[in-house]
């Protein structure tokens, strides 16, 4: 305050000194709102660079006496966009002020502080609360998908509350995580599935998402720190970008507002694969048997044993999918008294999944308090408590999955026997039986922090905060005796356990603002942080339950196994940032963070991550003042280093582990091979960009080009298995990501009654693996469908190229040798190495899951109180490995059912086709990974379409003296329309969502659906 005062005095003196040379004259005018033409009282009008100013009266009129010629009038008023108008020789200047559409004055949250958007030197994408309100979102995916340039959101599947993955500017890592760091109100939080696995490998990609317990109605803004300048303050955790989530807070002196919101709707699954009916199945099955030299089964074989003469025809998809209900109620109150401001909320969210047996429920509450004790001391706290309950079903590659089973179970079985027992089919369990597996995941989470801030001398702020992120994840599986999994080891099987995580963070910062004179200002920040993350888990398995009703472990007669684990990691950090602002024209930011991590090897404990950024606000230069169309133009450049330490807690050590049980005695065995030089992965990023606003904020946009090099990549370098290990972790690889991002927004029409706004973004990222262990490929992830190879992108599919289909035995014998059983109707594969035989060496890269371009755009049309918002998302140039074709169309290698697309299989009379013959056993291995399974995954999807009506204030004012401040009614459809050539159900699924190289695989993956909701929002 003192400094500001001094500044004002200096300015005043300059103005006073000039006074004698000028002649007095006046300028007057009226200030109105561009929206409805009404007068705006109380607008500050000031001659730029002076203290000469006034305020508009109740009718919006002002009059100001000038002391010099020329100059500029600055009009400012809260909630309206500040306008600067050159006076010239005019004596009357009227102004229509527009509502604050410009983003320049927006406060943007950055690491350990905030900044005005105009002062940002780094690349930060921001999603405001109004963009995510009233959308039935559960996870961060739906909240920011398509809204932030360069951020690719990959959802695993249609499981409500299910797994999701974010890629900020591509993937920087192979072995460590590629997920960004999530920071909620300054607390770096845990975002990892805490599921501990289970029999038959657990749930596949169907685990939960720990960010899903945040109530999105509480969110004020989401910022994504993309370049090194913005992110380097988070050091060794920032290579994948940082997502800052800020929740709503009250303001002191703000009138209390109670807001109630309710929506309800339903979800329908996308169009499911069309499976063969019984007649078609019998035809293909018998054909496949005969092709394999087996005898065709008599028709009686397919009859219902309980109903001789009748062949059932069951549509399994229809049996396991349903129309699912979705609803949410939330209430919040926000306001503030003289000393204390508050925000409190409560939410109930309940979603069924379209797949029977799946769903998600969340209860959550939050209180955010800010209290100013006196001039120099303030306190605050944030407390959020949530409970989520996800009902899941295994899928992907797990034999107990209902969708897995429905894609395979032959249609001639009935779902149930006359007594009610589930029919035993050609699958482990029939699809209806598979829905009986109970897999519940519950999370109890407390995210709490308290802080105080003292300002002992003006502009020096000392802040200390202590935070706790506590997660108690509970998994509760019960497999009743009605399903095979429940009968395998006895009567009923259950696995129950918890995985608890306690993350304590203590952070202290000191910040200082210094204005040296009216042209120079410096802010500085230094801080220290300690963080410890402890985990503790227990998992027990038991069998032989008295019946299917008593499901607690104490009911079980036979305990099978109990396991548990404890682990921890710590991070000790020191950081600092300096911002220098020269005359609002040149901005310089320097940051540095030193992170010590318990994960690094003893000799490599501390990593240092510096960055520097420069921005030039061209529009504030004298030469730009004549460019009246140009509101703002800023050119930025940044360079710096960030790291990635998201790997195993004790990855550097050679370890023996316990739990190797033999004859009831627990033994130990080597579990990890040592590397005493293990350290963080290091990413260096150069970013050059500009932001602009044109034509009185009608058009705004930004552009970024970046290039980032990551080296010291942790790789589980493979070891020959004869060593007893298959891998050792080493810092060895290199990856490069380069790309551009463009964001554009325009008010096409902007009148008081009617506005039409379009905003959109497009991003292109090119990812290249530069270096691997000895240059050798990594046969990556999952089923061996992907490869990591130098010179290629990280998500490269790998397999045989299909040349065509053999038509004659002569063709087979003329072609390179495939297998002994190859026959006409089988795929002919490319002999890439020309050795005359089709071997694994002939596999080639078949495509990549990485899109050429991705982004989204929003159309908002506003007519009086009526809003129509259409949000589209797109991805261009990515491929999907459709593994459902593998056994669902391209082969009928056993008794499993296949899709109707297989009816067009090769037969001696149907030779003009690209689907091979059906043959039991698939001797040619037509189902090996090949180009016929790789499809173009580009899509354009209307992600949300919202129609909303805000009741006019005139009507509201007439009800109980304006008791209601806002009433909004809305209808919304998500995923209404999708344009894609992809033949699978949903282009937005990914079996291996959290792996670096396995994205874009659709393997029995639970598809998403279309959701329709109706909602109402009332504020008092």
């Amino acid at each position, binding site marked *: 305050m003192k400094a500001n005062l001094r500044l004002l005095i200096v300015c005043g003196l300059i103005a006073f000194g000039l006074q004698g040379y000028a002649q007095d004259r006046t300028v007057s005018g009226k200030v109105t709102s561009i929206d409805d033409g009404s007068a705006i009282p109380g607008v500050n009008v000031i001659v730029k660079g002076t203290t000469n100013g006034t305020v508009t009266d109740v009718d919006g009129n002002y009059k100001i006496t000038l002391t010099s010629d020329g100059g500029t009038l600055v009009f400012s008023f809260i909630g309206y966009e500040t306008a600067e108008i050159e006076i010239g020789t005019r004596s009357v200047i009227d102004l229509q002020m527009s509502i604050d559409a410009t983003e320049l004055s927006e406060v943007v949250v950055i690491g350990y502080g905030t900044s005005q958007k105009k002062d940002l030197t780094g690349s930060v994408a921001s999603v405001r609360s109004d963009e995510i309100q009233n959308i039935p979102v559960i996870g961060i995916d739906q909240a920011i998908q398509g809204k932030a340039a360069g951020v690719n959101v990959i959802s695993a599947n249609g499981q409500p509350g299910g797994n999701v993955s974010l890629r900020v500017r591509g993937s920087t890592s192979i072995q460590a995580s590629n997920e960004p760091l999530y920071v909620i109100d300054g607390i770096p939080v845990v975002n990892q599935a805490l599921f501990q696995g289970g029999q038959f490998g657990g749930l596949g990609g169907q685990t939960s998402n720990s960010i899903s317990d945040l109530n999105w109605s509480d969110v004020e803004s989401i910022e994504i720190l993309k370049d090194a300048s913005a992110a380097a303050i988070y050091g060794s955790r920032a290579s994948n970008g940082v997502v800052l989530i800020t929740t709503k807070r009250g303001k002191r002196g703000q009138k209390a507002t109670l807001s109630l919101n309710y929506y309800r709707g339903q979800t329908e699954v996308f169009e499911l694969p069309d499976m063969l009916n019984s007649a078609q199945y019998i035809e293909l099955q018998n054909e496949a048997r005969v092709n394999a030299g087996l005898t065709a089964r008599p028709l009686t074989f397919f009859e219902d044993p309980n109903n001789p003469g009748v062949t059932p025809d069951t549509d399994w998809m229809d049996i396991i999918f349903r129309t699912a209900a979705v609803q949410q109620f939330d209430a919040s109150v926000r306001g503030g008294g003289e000393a204390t401001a508050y925000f409190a909320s409560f939410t109930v969210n309940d979603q069924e999944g379209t797949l029977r047996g799946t769903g998600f429920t969340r209860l959550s509450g939050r209180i955010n308090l800010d209290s100013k004790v006196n001039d120099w001391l303030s306190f605050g706290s944030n407390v959020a408590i949530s409970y989520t309950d996800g009902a899941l079903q295994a899928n992907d590659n797990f034999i107990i999955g209902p969708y897995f089973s429905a894609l395979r179970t032959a249609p001639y079985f009935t779902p149930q026997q006359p007594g009610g027992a589930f029919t035993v089919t050609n699958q482990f369990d029939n699809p209806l039986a598979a829905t009986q597996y109970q897999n519940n995941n519950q999370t109890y989470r407390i995210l709490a922090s308290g802080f105080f801030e003292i300002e002992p001398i003006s502009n020096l702020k000392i802040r200390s905060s202590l935070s706790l992120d506590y997660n108690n994840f509970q998994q509760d599986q019960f497999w009743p005796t009605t399903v095979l999994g429940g009968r395998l080891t006895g009567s009923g099987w259950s696995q129950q356990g918890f995985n608890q995580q306690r993350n304590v963070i203590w952070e202290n910062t000191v910040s200082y603002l210094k204005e040296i004179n009216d042209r120079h200002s410096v802010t500085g920040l230094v801080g220290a942080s300690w963080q410890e993350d402890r985990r503790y888990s227990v998992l027990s398995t038991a069998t032989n339950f008295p019946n299917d009703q008593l499901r607690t472990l104490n009911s079980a007669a036979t305990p099978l196994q109990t396991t548990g684990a404890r682990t921890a990691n710590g991070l000790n950090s020191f950081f600092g940032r300096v911002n220098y602002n020269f005359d609002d024209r040149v901005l310089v930011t320097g940051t540095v963070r030193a992170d010590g991590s318990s994960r690094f090897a003893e000799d490599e404990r501390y990593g240092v991550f510096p960055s520097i950024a420069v921005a030039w606000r061209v529009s504030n230069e004298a030469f730009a003042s004549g460019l009246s169309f140009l509101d703002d133009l800023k050119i930025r450049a940044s360079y710096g280093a960030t790291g990635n330490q998201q790997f195993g807690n004790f990855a550097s050590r050679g370890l023996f582990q316990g739990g190797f049980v033999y004859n009831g005695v627990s033994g130990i*065995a080597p579990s990890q091979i040592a590397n005493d030089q293990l350290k963080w992965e290091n990413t260096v990023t150069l970013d050059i960009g500009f932001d602009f606003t044109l034509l009185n904020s009608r058009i705004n946009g930004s552009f970024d080009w970046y290039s980032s090099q990551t080296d010291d990549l942790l790789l589980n370098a493979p070891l020959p298995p004869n060593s007893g290990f298959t891998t050792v972790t080493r810092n060895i690889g290199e990856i490069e990501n380069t790309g551009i991002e463009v964001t554009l927004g325009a008010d096409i029409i902007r009148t008081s009654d009617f506005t039409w706004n379009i905003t959109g973004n497009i991003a292109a990222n090119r990812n290249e693996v530069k270096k691997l262990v000895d240059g050798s490929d990594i046969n990556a992830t999952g089923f061996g469908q992907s490869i990591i190879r130098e010179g290629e992108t990280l998500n490269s599919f790998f397999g045989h190229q299909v040349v065509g289909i053999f038509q004659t035995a002569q063709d087979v014998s003329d072609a390179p040798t495939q297998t002994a059983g190859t026959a006409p109707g089988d795929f002919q594969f490319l002999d890439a190495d020309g050795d005359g035989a089709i071997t694994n060496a002939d596999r080639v890269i078949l495509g990549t899951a990485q899109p050429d371009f991705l982004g989204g755009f929003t159309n908002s049309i506003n007519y009086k109180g009526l809003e129509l918002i259409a949000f589209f998302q797109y991805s261009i140039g990515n491929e999907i490995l459709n593994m459902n074709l593998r056994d669902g169309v391209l082969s009928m290698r056993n008794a499993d059912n296949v899709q109707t697309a297989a009816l067009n299989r090769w037969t001696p009379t149907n030779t003009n086709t690209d689907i091979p013959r059906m043959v039991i056993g698939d001797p040619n291995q037509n189902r090996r990974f090949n180009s016929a399974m790789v499809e173009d995954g580009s899509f354009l999807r209307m992600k949300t379409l919202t129609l909303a009506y805000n009741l006019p204030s005139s009507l509201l004012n007439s009800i109980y003296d304006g008791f209601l401040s806002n009433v909004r009614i809305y209808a919304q459809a998500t995923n209404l329309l999708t344009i894609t050539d992809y033949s699978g159900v949903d282009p937005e699924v990914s079996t291996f969502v959290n792996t670096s190289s396995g994205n874009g695989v659709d393997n029995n993956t639970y598809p998403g659906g279309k959701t329709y909701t109706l909602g109402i929002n009332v504020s008092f």
Partner: protein
Amino acid sequence: MKKLSILSLALIFAFTSCEVTEVLEQEPAQSLSDATAIVDAQSAETALTGVYSGLQSGNYYGRMHLAWGAVLSGYMGSTSQTTRNSTFQSETNTNDPNDNTLKATWQFIYRVANRASNVVTLVEGLSDSDGFAGSRRTQIIAEARFLRALAHFDLLSYFGRHWDNSSPLGIPLRLEPGNVSNSEQPRATVAEVYASINEDLDFAIANAPAFSSTVSVSSIAATALKAKVALFQQDYAQAATLANTVINSGTFQLEASYSDIFVNRLNSSELIFSPFFSQIEGSGHSFFILTPSSPLGQGRWDYGPTAQFTSVMSGDPREAASIGTTADGVEVVKYPNLTAGDDPAYVLRLAEIHLIRAEALARSGGSVADIQAELNAVRTRAGLANTTASTVADLLTAIQAEKVLELAFENGTEWFDAIRYDNIQALKASVTSDNQYVLPISQDEVDNNANVEQSPGY
């Protein structure tokens, strides 16, 4: 206020040295650093337990040991329920080095060898005074060396040219604890592998404990294994002698009835060695061989006996204890305890030792009467009349046939015998080259070990 600021700064930074902030000193709670893992008798015992535990893997004696040889030889095959690629590939003898089951078998057997070598090396570094009772330290080493020999022998028999003593194409030996610098072991020659196995077994014969249970290593089990190794190595005199030692030791007796073997299981009087299995430490045997409609429990039926087997077994008194017919088809019933999960893996049992001795005598100039006696010991117990074969050549044929009937689906003997007898190509049409007598080496090994080349033909 200045005082306050100093105070708060002091408060904040004073803690840097206190316990709250010592977050970098973390020790694994569920693992031990390798330097401190094996330091005394107790930790040596737990590490030995870890070696045994490796035998139970589904990729080793927990399941695949019964499937590989049985399917490769054609006595077992895929069923309508089969999904496993390895089964189809073994059925047609076109095994893929990239097949996941094959890779896992290679990896998990080496895992046992590596665990064993860790115990051998680290326990050799201790002294008897580190809390070991009597000669227990040497016994532990002996047990570990037996398990390492077993792993190397299994690897050699599936992946190396075990029938050709002069072949360079053995397998990599894992004789030291695996680490980054010794991981690229080249293939030892077949002769070198046999030498290493015999050295380990000689140590075990001399130092392992006396027989106490079928689920732990004994000196006599090492003798039995060495007899089998000698047979494979074509050291027939040695094989006959060692087999005789086991038979005459009196430690094991043939069960009175063939079916009692599968009733008494781990307590069978003729079982020499098997990994331990129980409901908790269950094997996958039954689940993968029983049909969905089996009266013994609902299984996955990944493999079932072929017509080649049911025709030779037809009418044999052992038929009912070996195979059964269900609504889905014929199943193997030698592992009937689906729920209990405690069917052994028949690594070595006395009946096989009799037949080893019979063959070894036949191939080393033994008397026809002695050969017949060993063969008849097994036939008599089975409920059959004495053999009618009376020439060495006929006896050899009869012994091979007997081993199929007696030991099918137990430890791959039906496959190895047909290779050693050099009649596999007559037995199974899809085997046309001796390249197919070995499984391909795991692609993971070939890709990552510059010193190992894939076996010819793959």
